[in-house]
């Protein structure tokens, strides 16, 4: 009897984990429809000509996200014209992180002149679909005959502090491969970041 209970517990634990598993390269990248800081709704379909997307879960508050902010702006400037625009999504619950409300997101996007959408994820639905764990957490997505597919998940580069002279720019390398119709050599990286802020569980 005890064995069954243990088994059940293991299963429940596995299910709970499965719900927020981070998407991996090769898996379908679900489309979404989320409200942008300009109050318009944005989805993959808003970009009929795009070849893919740089979907980055980032926020107003995390020091790592702030350290990467300019690099996110630069990614969009460089790759939007090449068919890979940035779509930023704030994964934090505004009740749990007071400086991540929709208003504050609007302020930041305006102040830093974001050239890309900065979306509010009501109920953290898309955050959980992608299994975004921290900020910044980035997914490179490509459009294929079978729909939108994850090509890469992880960090922007290997230099969060921004002090290395020789850095590996993971995202740039991924997109360079995709443009050559090749599969990226590195499809997953890990980096320290701020945990996604959630309401305390009752």
């Amino acid at each position, binding site marked *: 009897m005890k064995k069954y209970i243990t088994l059940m517990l293991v299963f429940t634990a596995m299910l709970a984990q499965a719900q927020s598993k*981070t998407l991996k390269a090769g898996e379908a990248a679900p489309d979404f429809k989320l409200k942008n800081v300009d109050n318009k709704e944005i989805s993959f379909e808003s970009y009929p000509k795009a070849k893919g997307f740089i979907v980055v879960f980032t926020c107003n*508050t995390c*020091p*790592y996200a702030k350290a990467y902010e300019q690099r996110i702006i630069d990614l969009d400037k460089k790759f939007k014209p090449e068919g890979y625009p940035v779509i930023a999504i704030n994964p934090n619950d505004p009740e749990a992180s007071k400086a991540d409300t929709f208003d504050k997101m609007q302020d930041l996007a305006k102040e830093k002149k974001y050239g890309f959408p900065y979306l509010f994820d009501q109920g953290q639905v898309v955050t959980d679909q992608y299994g975004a*764990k*921290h900020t910044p*957490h980035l997914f490179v997505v490509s459009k294929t005959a079978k729909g939108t597919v994850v090509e890469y998940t992880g*960090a922007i580069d*290997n230099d*969060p*502090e921004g*002090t290395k002279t020789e850095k590996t720019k993971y995202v740039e390398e991924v997109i360079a491969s995709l443009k050559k119709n090749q599969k990226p050599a590195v499809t997953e*990286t*890990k*980096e*320290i*970041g*701020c*945990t*996604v*802020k959630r309401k305390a569980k009752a």
Partner: protein
Amino acid sequence: MKIRTFIICVLLSCSGLSYSQNVKLLSVDQLQERIKKGQDSTYVVNFWATWCAPCIKELPHFEKLSQEYKSDKLAVLLVSVDFKSKLNTAVVPFVKRKKLTNPVFLLNESNPQEYIDRIDPSWSGSIPATLFIKNDKKKFMETELTYEQLVTEYKKL
């Protein structure tokens, strides 16, 4: 070259003595070695940083845990993942200001592609995160903990 290395070592150890006696550098190897040596002890290893608000909020819980269970074979280690360049400018002053009593370390690793998986393969890299280890039993939690949750997880081992 050897002399230079020697001087750097002396400088490092001096600065270690005078400014950062409470915060030592710790590699994953050293952490694993320490855990292996302390058989039958329970290790609660918290990964945090001075820039991480939820980490700072939960640090007092770890202080309280080691106080409350003083008579247990329990070691609480606070491992900061701050940049190494912040050791003397951020980490040491923080540890002094907060009067942390548990041993505090700064993680002495530079390649997250390697060390994050070695701490636990399930870790995506977000902090706070806490590792509970007793002999063969291991649990890794990539989440902020309340004091009650911390005690529950500790007692489960």
